[in-house]
């Protein structure tokens, strides 16, 4: 990251240490990219993308995010399995995660995130303001 194009953003750099880290796990690279762009646009978050469920744990250990967005339906390893592994890992179990899903409808989640059997869900297609308010709510 340092030495990259972000170096030119002086204000961003000065806040670097205070930025909350968010890991986005979805098998759709365009989606994680759009989410990252919207989150980074605020200048408040450091975002990393991961497009393979099976690599999500390794990425989490390395990045140690404050929040993880997990797509439920992924071809190699589903978000629910990733979440289970997170819960069982002493290093990672305190990380907050939110499921991204196309199957739970907006009516069920309302706007913003919803808790279904103890898990937080965010329904696709998610809008920028919803995304930001959920993040704000969960990790300030």
């Amino acid at each position, binding site marked *: 990251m340092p030495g990259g194009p972000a170096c030119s953003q002086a204000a961003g750099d000065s806040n670097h240490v205070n930025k909350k880290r968010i890991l986005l796990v979805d098998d759709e690279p365009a989606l994680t990219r*759009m989410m990252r762009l919207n989150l980074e646009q605020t200048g408040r978050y450091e975002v990393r993308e991961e497009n393979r469920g099976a690599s999500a744990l390794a990425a989490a250990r390395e990045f140690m995010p404050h929040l993880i967005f997990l797509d439920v339906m992924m071809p190699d390893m589903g978000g629910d399995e990733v979440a289970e592994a997170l819960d069982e890992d002493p290093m990672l179990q305190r990380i907050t995660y939110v499921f991204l899903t*196309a199957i739970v*409808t*907006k009516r069920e989640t309302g706007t913003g995130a919803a808790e279904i059997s103890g898990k937080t869900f965010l329904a*696709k297609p998610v*809008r*920028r303001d919803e995304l930001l308010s959920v993040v704000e709510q969960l990790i300030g």
Partner: protein
Amino acid sequence: MGEDKRQSGDAMRPTVLLVDDMAANLRVLYESLNGSDYRLLIANGGAEALKVARRARPDLILLDIMMPDVDGFEVCRQLKADPSTAGMGVIFLSALDAIADKVKGLELGAVDYVTKPFHPEEVAARVETHCKIVRLERQLASRNRELKLVRDRILNAMVEGVVGLDADGRASFVNPAAVRMLGEAAEGVLARDVADWDPAALREAMSRVLAGEEEVTIRDLVLPRTGGEGLPAELRVAAIREGAVTRGAVLVLRDLSERRQAQAALAQTSDQLRESHRELKEAQMQLIQAAKLESVGRLAAGVAHEVKNPLAIVQLGMDYLQQELVLEATTTRVFQDMQQAISRADTVVRGLLDFSRERQLDLTPAAINDIIDASLQLVRHELNQRNIQVDTDLDPGIPPRPFDADKLQQVFLNLFMNAMHAVGHDGTLHISSRLRVLRSGDLGAQAREAGFLAGDTAICVLVEDTGPGINPENLARLFDPYFTTKPIGEGSGLGLPVTRNIVTLHRGSIDLGNRPGGGARAALLFRPEQH
């Protein structure tokens, strides 16, 4: 064998007692009868005669009248007074030839009279005649006994109850089956007159037969029984006739209760069969429906995933760009159009998901009227704005039953919205609910498919509007997913499929049509109690 024959022959040989106080007379009598096939006994006075008669039970007594100790008339009176000796035949012997004595003797029960001096051939002839009578009587009695035995055996073995009636209508015999069926001991039955029988139809049948009718049959009758329920029976009263004269009647009773029970059991089995057939059919329908939904569900989930991800990308990309770009009026307008397009696509996919996922109900007892009222509240504002009157006629007597109130509210909401869109402005929405027995005219195609039958009691809800009604061409397609008559972007095409799905999950039915006065009608049926 030979001995048996002799013994039985001996037993059948008549015993004749000769009574006279004069030895000479006794000798004459003895000699006139000896050599014939009789067993002869002798008594030389009245007292002796009584003693021998009581001990030896002769079939015939030749009895002298004039005897010093007990005279013949007295001997006869005493023998006739004692039932065990009353059956003996008595022939008086006397020198007396007075008419009065002959009459007296016959009045006392004598069978004949022989005057002294005897002619041995005459005595032999008279004795022979009476002994023949005695023999015949014995044979008759024995035959009668046999017949009675056979009769009793037959009557006892009969499943039918049999009661014999004499010419006066008094019961003369009754078999055990009749005793069982009448619930009264044989003595009680035998004491009955026609007037003692119940019911009246039975008395009438008896009277008609005793009055000359050949036979009366009553196929269906309930016999009252002491201390029990009446017995369903079939009965036949048949005349016993001699020539043209009715001598009595036979009453034959057949117990129908077992047949009734068998019939009832059969009917019940058939009902159960019909019921299980119906359940099977319902289960089959539910299976088919479930299978359909299952495939739709898998498809829906796949479609949702495939469509929502691109939508999410476009949505977020657009949101990002709106932040990055300096927006002009035209650009803003473009973004708005794009946003609407995304919302529309999202609505369609969401509807598909709803449709595929209405598979389980959360049932709690609820009153249908409350659900209707709650649904009405949600559209009240829009109804007012459109100046659509609401005319409700809800039956307060409908008992609660398990409903998924939320889902059912969605049903009514869909129907009310459709009605509102059909009416547009200024009109009436009629809503009625009833608990009532269905007539065949109430049963639309969906109701029949759901297994409702004429005669069933059901909760009936009608939602009617004063709009233009449903185009008959469209009637058959109303429940097809994605069929809509609304302008593009307004209807998902899934409202009615979802509605029907929810109703079907409640084991109810919904039929759509037009009401006679114009406007559309939705008729919903629910079973009063969910099993």
